[in-house]
């Protein structure tokens, strides 16, 4: 089995996912992880696929060439190193960091008047505290008065991080950029 990452970008239209996955199914590829979004009207998708042992990333890219020309898409397939596993999986095998050391998941939400450098400032603050961003989404929208920028980050905050220190650091960033930032651990609701 070979693992590949396929990235697809291009003008949005109905049927892109159906067309791409048709080619993958005909090539006996299995989609393991995928994410699709429309960014500023452009289709963007990433897929991690496993293919039979005699089919490699370059074969997948070749099989998608006709489709990319037809739909005006840029499609790139690259081999993926499957030895890179998520920390939770590796800990099961190798006795890596326990859950308690991994810390908590947090949501960090920021919004305000649009300006250059919001993502950079917030992500730099998080990186300085060894916070790992798991998912990030930004949206720029024009309101009736001015452009408003909104960002939602899902992140892993290590147990060693002082939570109030992280809150204070984010407040300083918010003050400097004149934006609102709220950050809180994920509330685990066991029902």
């Amino acid at each position, binding site marked *: 089995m070979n693992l590949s990452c396929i990235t697809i970008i291009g003008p*949005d*239209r*109905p*049927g892109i996912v159906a067309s791409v996955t048709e080619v993958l199914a005909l090539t006996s590829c299995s989609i393991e992880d995928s994410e699709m979004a*429309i960014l500023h*009207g452009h289709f963007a998708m990433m897929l991690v696929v496993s293919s039979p042992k005699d089919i490699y990333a370059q074969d997948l890219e070749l099989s998608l060439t006709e489709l990319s020309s037809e739909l005006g898409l840029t499609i790139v397939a690259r081999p993926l190193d499957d030895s890179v596993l998520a920390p939770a999986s590796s800990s099961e095998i190798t006795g890596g960091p326990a859950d308690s050391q991994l810390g908590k998941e947090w*949501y960090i*939400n920021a*919004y*305000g*008047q649009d300006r250059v450098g919001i993502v950079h400032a917030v992500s730099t603050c998080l990186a300085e505290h060894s916070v790992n961003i798991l*998912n*990030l*989404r930004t*949206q*720029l*929208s*024009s*309101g*009736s*008065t001015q452009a*408003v920028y*909104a960002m*939602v*980050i*899902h992140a892993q905050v290590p147990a060693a991080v002082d939570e109030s220190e992280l809150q204070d650091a984010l407040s300083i960033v918010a003050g400097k950029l*004149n*934006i*609102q930032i*709220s950050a809180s651990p*994920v509330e685990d*609701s066991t029902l």
Partner: protein
Amino acid sequence: MAIRQVLEIPHTVLSTPTKPVAKISDFESNLAQDLIDTMRASPGCVGLAANQIGIPLRAFALDVSGHKKTTECHGLIVLFNPEIQTKQGLETIREGCMSVPHFTADIPRAFEISLTGLTHEERPIEITTRGFEARAVLHEIDHLNGLVFLDRVTNPSNLFSRKVYLASPDR
């Protein structure tokens, strides 16, 4: 009294916690009427907090009667110094806001709540409600605490821009 302009983010009045009212005088009574008038004049609006119309006081107006998601309803509610007393259950629903016209988001909130506050006659009142009305109350009290629903998004995928998507081209 008057239909007031509804402020939009990033206005600082919307991100600053409001102050409790000391007593309900003419100013507060007029505020209550302005909240009702502005809410009634805004299509689709079921609630309005005082700081949304630029007054940094703890007061809101709310009326979910007639809304398709309403299951429990107390009609028109105008409350000063509202405080949540109990919260139970959890439900996630797509929310929008007149002060955040550019986005919507799926927001988890308590399903059933009880709250206390003062009526416009300065009479203490306790209300227990659930479903959409409870959500609307929590949304308004968030405003009074300087928060909008963007502060409550709990997953990056749950934030949506109010955009017009491309129409299907002919294939």
